[in-house]
Each structure stands twice: as C-alpha cells, then as structure tokens.
C-alpha cells in the first residue's frame, strides 16, 4: 500500500510541473513576441550627385530650386528666408510639381540638424527629388 501511494504522488508532481512549464512557455513566447522596439527612426531619402553630375546641373540653374543651408539660416534662390517662409514656399512649389529637383546646398559649418530640418519640410510637403550637395569653404 505504501508503495502505491508513493507512486501516485510522483505522478501528481510531474503533472503539475508540466502545466507550470506550459504556462511559463506561454508567458515567455508572449513577451518575446510583444517586446518589439518601437520604430521611431525615420529615413529621409536624398540623392548625392557625383561631382561630374553637379557640374552639368550648374549649367542650367534656372530650372532648379536651390536651397542653401547656412549656420545662420536658409536661403532659397538667393533670398533669405525663415523656416516658416521656407515651408510656405515649398508648399506652393509642391502644388506645382512634386517631382521637381530641389538642390540643397549645405554649408560645411552648419549643424546636421539644419539639413534634417529642410529634409523634413520637404518630406512633409511631399517633394521627393532632393539632391544634397555641399558648398565648400564656408
């Protein structure tokens, strides 16, 4: 009799363990699946024309929209503008043609966030043909 009881106890213990492991696995897989880092990174697409290409583009500057980025501010087609004015102008440009080439000339000394700011405005208004060139010396 004593032997029989012992056997049934072991059996009960094993059953409990299996259930616990099952639950633990469920929890583990649940957390592994749900803990996904939130994607907070945006990617802004730009083109970097090779030096030869830039030269040919410079030959016909009339058709291009040129945005210059300086540490102090922005210049669009030789006009000083604030961020708001720039955005208003770009909204108008985007209404005409979203695929026109925007040439963004960034000064070496300007912080990277200024360039990102311009790219962000372009992404907001839907302009998608952006070329970034660097103006040296500044």
């Amino acid at each position, binding site marked *: 009799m004593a032997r029989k009881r012992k056997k049934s106890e072991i059996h009960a213990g094993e059953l409990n363990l299996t259930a616990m492991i099952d639950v633990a696995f469920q929890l583990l897989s649940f957390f*592994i699946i749900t803990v996904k880092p939130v994607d*907070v990174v945006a*990617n802004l697409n730009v083109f*970097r024309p090779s030096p030869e290409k830039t030269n040919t583009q410079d030959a016909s500057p009339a058709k291009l929209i040129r945005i210059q980025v300086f540490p102090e501010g922005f210049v669009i087609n030789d006009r000083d503008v604030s961020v708001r004015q720039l955005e208003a102008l770009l909204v108008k440009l985007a209404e005409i043609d979203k695929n026109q080439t925007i040439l963004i000339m960034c000064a070496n000394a300007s912080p990277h966030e200024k360039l990102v700011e311009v*790219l962000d405005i372009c*992404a907001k208004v839907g302009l998608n043909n952006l070329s970034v060139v*660097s103006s040296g010396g500044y």
Partner: protein
Amino acid sequence: MRRQKEEEYLSGNLTAMIDVVFQLIIFFVCTVSMQDKANDESIKMAMAPHGEVSKDKNPLEITIDVNKSGVISISRQPMTEGTLYSVLSKVAAEYGAANVPVIIRGDAKTKHGAVRTVMDACAKAGIWKIKISALKEKG
C-alpha cells in the same frame, strides 16, 4: 515495475526537450538584443516628425554613424575617409552600387562637414541614393 520504468523514461525525454527549447529561447533573445548594440547610442539624432519609416529592412544596408565630434564609424568601428571609401567601393563592386542602401546616422549637433565626408565617399563609390536617419518622435 515495468510501468514505472516507462514513466521514468518518458519524463527524462521531456526534460531534455525543455532544456533544448530553453537554450533556443535564450539564444534568440541574446541575438536579438545584440543586433541593436551595433549602433552607437551616444548619437542624438535630429528630429524629423514627417519623415517616412522604412518598412522592410534590407540586409545589405550599411549604417554609417557620425558622432557629435565628427568621427565616422560603422558598427562602432571608427574609420577614416579612405577606409570608408574602400569599404563602400568593395560592397558596391560586389552587389552593384544601386542595390546598396546607405543610411547615415548623424548627430544633430555635428557639423555638415563630417556628413559631407561620408556623402563624398558614397558618391565616389558610385552610391548616390542615401538615406539620412532622423527621429520621428522624442524617444
């Protein structure tokens, strides 16, 4: 007696299986967190709330970090302009320059000159499609 032996045999198998499954889980958890550590976390990227989020990750993509003081690195490995160019041109030669997405993670406060160095190296290697990384919201 025979039945008891069978039960022991069964439970032994279960233990081994659980061990293996745990090992697999631990392996995957570790490798997933290791992927994120390849990026330099000291870089504070600029904000771009309107930029689009890239949905699918291209396994060929190269992420180039530019930190606050203008040091260029790939996967925490600092490199000079020459090394960067040789890396990029090798990848471009192997897979085709148009197929290699280059992502620049630049610190908001870094000067454009450092980012320009990276862009020039890309252009020299024939890669003219570049993505500039930015934060969509404050993290």
